[in-house]
């Protein structure tokens, strides 16, 4: 074997390593969680239930958001959208008693909020990040106003638990995640939509000169994210049939961390991976739960945040490893 072939093999091995690393990290974190729970004498099934309930919502919203992140954009308002959609859903159910209308309202509001961000960005040429920051403020404020006016900030507003109880079963939540992920994966990896979005994220100028309509694909990305938010808002209500001003508050930032944990480049583009949202979402939730168990005090919260941040930086470094070595002057 000549040196050229050996080097090429080494390069490809490293590429494969970077690809499988998020899966390995997920498996290792899961094993650590199981060991930690058992070592502390807690009930593992209870933790697995918490993990699935939190993880499914984060993974679904993050999967939809991957379409936006692939474009190299960033939506910080997804948590506020989830809160606002769930709030409107509760209000509609309480006003009509109709479950179907509630669902319609949740998805209508979620997709509508996403569309508004993208249309504002594409029509008025405002950076997407700016529109989503504005949306986050507006949606949080309006949701808080509705919640406090109708039930008080602490107690929140709620729907009768029996309305959503039939859906509060693990198989249903996993099924919803599986179906949504499968649809997104199909669109992302096997259709023109996903391929063009990845290309657009890598070089918008070149994409435009290859006939790709920037606005159209930005709007489609936000619609996908809106659907994810809608499902996330519904599952949030299924888990706890009440909405407070703190509901889904941290989802916006958690999505960013989750997607990066899953091995997706923060700049989007052709190396974006749809599975990053699910793998990273669950990794992040597991890591948080491990840290909560290990550092069980108020002071520990800060330490957990620091550990998460270090983990985040390490993942960004490793996922970017191959890319950096390719920046060659030729």
């Amino acid at each position, binding site marked *: 074997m000549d040196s050229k072939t050996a080097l090429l093999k080494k390069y490809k091995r490293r590429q494969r390593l970077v690809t499988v690393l998020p899966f390995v990290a997920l498996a290792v974190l899961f094993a650590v969680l199981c060991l930690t729970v058992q070592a502390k004498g807690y009930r593992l099934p209870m933790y697995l239930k918490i993990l699935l309930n939190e993880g499914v919502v984060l993974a679904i919203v993050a999967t939809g958001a991957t379409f936006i992140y692939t474009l190299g954009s960033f939506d910080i308002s997804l948590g506020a959208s989830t809160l606002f959609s769930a709030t409107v859903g509760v209000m509609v159910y309480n006003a009509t008693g109709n479950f179907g209308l509630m669902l319609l309202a949740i998805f209508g509001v979620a997709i509508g909020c996403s569309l508004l961000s993208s249309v504002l960005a594409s029509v008025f040429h405002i950076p997407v990040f700016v529109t989503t920051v504005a949306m986050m403020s507006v949606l949080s404020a309006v949701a808080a106003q509705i919640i406090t006016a109708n039930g008080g900030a602490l107690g929140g507003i709620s729907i009768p638990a029996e309305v959503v109880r039939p859906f509060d079963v693990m198989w249903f939540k996993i099924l919803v995640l599986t179906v949504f992920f499968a649809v997104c994966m199909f669109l992302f990896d096997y259709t*023109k939509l996903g391929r063009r979005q990845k290309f657009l994220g890598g070089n918008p100028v070149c994409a*435009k*000169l290859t*006939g790709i309509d920037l606005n159209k694909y930005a709007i489609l990305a936000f619609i996908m994210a809106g659907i994810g938010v809608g499902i996330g808002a519904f599952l949030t209500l299924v888990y706890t049939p009440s909405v407070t001003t703190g509901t889904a508050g941290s989802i916006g930032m958690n999505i960013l961390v989750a997607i990066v944990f899953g091995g997706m480049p923060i700049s989007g583009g052709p190396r974006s991976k749809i599975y990053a949202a699910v793998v990273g979402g669950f990794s992040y939730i597991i890591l948080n739960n491990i840290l909560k168990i290990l550092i069980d005090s108020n002071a520990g919260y800060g330490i957990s945040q620091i550990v998460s941040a270090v983990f985040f930086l390490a993942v960004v470094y490793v996922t970017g490893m191959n890319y950096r070595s390719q920046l060659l002057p030729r």
Partner: protein
Amino acid sequence: MKAPILQMKNIHKRFSSTIALDGVDLDAFPGEICGLIGENGSGKSTISSIAAGMQKADEGEMFFRGEPWSPVSMIDALEKGIGMIVQESGTISGISVAENLFLAEVKKFRKGPVVDREEMNRQADLALDAIGASDIRGNMPMSALDFQARKLVEIAKVVMKDPDVLVVDETSTALSHEGRNILYDVMRRFREEDKAVLFISHDLDEIMDVCDTLTVLRDGNLIRTFSKEEFNPDAIRMSMIGRELKGDYYRSDFIPSSLDEIALKGEDLSIPGELDGVDLTLRKGEIVGIGGLSHCGMHTLGKVLFGAIRPESGRVVTGDGSEIRDEGSSMKHNIGYVAKDRDTESLNLTASIRDNIAIAGLDRYAVSGFLLTAGNEKKYVDKQIADLSIKCSDRDQAVQQLSGGNKQKVVFGKWIGRGSDILILDCPTRGVDIGVKRDMYRLMSDMKKQGKAILIISEELPELIGMSDRLIIMKDGRITKEFTRSESLSDADVINYMI
């Protein structure tokens, strides 16, 4: 014989699986312009970038004025005496020309807590005047400048530091006639001041005209150094590609020909300050060349014809009367566009060869118009890689790892793969070696024979004269002259209408 200013001994460099330099020795002597020539990927840019501090050698020694030389960065190298003008864009668009020129030295202009922008602009103007680029001013936003003007800013940025060795890496291909003259003047000034120039170019005529010596690299090895009296085009070409390559690469016929059918028509196209009532007809089976100085409007015209820029008045229509309104409608009518600024406008550098070729042809191989299967895609991409002889490890190799010529082949593959009937090529052979150039000219001739229409926009007159059925010359946004293909047509006939 004078002692060399720069000595590079036994330089080795590897990139992943590629051996870029395999023990190269190179000297730069005072009062000498040394040409570096070789095919894409031969190691020219790598050796010069090592000298200029852009990257480190894996092995080998360097000496600058007799002292060991190991710059930590390009800025460090420039401060200490070796400056390099890079092949692709080396400027930042969001800031002014002056800020680009004094990027690492803004503190020089500090007056208390504020920066004295007036003084910075004045110094920038002086630097630009010193190279003869007085139409560019320090207070201009970089984004307002075209590709050539940005290159001139880069030249000024390096020259104002007064280095002892100037490295010019394939810069002239980004420049028009006037821009090249500015660059040549700078290089000659360096020679007169007993300094050294390393000049990398693919243009053999240019390099033979400007240089005192010529070093040929091939596959990371130094093949031969020619002195001025040894310059012989065939011998140099043979050293470059390792086999005999004689005669013309252009079309051998001198009879203009085309089909009667119109492929694309621009009617009264105007954009204030750029195009002024341009009418142009491109027929099937025809190659039309457009030449002129850099600011003549020809690059804008290419974008307008592709629908990337909307004209203020006038319209672009295809042979069947359909109007071209944007890039999408161009692609629907099988029009392809190869941009001058390859790395920014024609390629997605972070993507693979496969992604770049496939993206324009998704509708060609998608099952039922939407489903992309790996099998169809591989077949589609592999055909382009094979047909265009793209040198790569596999289809999934990142485009940024390829040499300039192979990158350009990927761009061609992108448009040819989808079966474009009309190709608009803006400087298609910029920064590519003679072997790739020859392949591209052959490809154009074959496409013409198949009845396809080609518009070449170029700053290389021999290329335009050698390939075009009709040659259109533009000046100040207008068409000033049209030549028909003929054996007697020469550069001298054309230049008068450009200036």
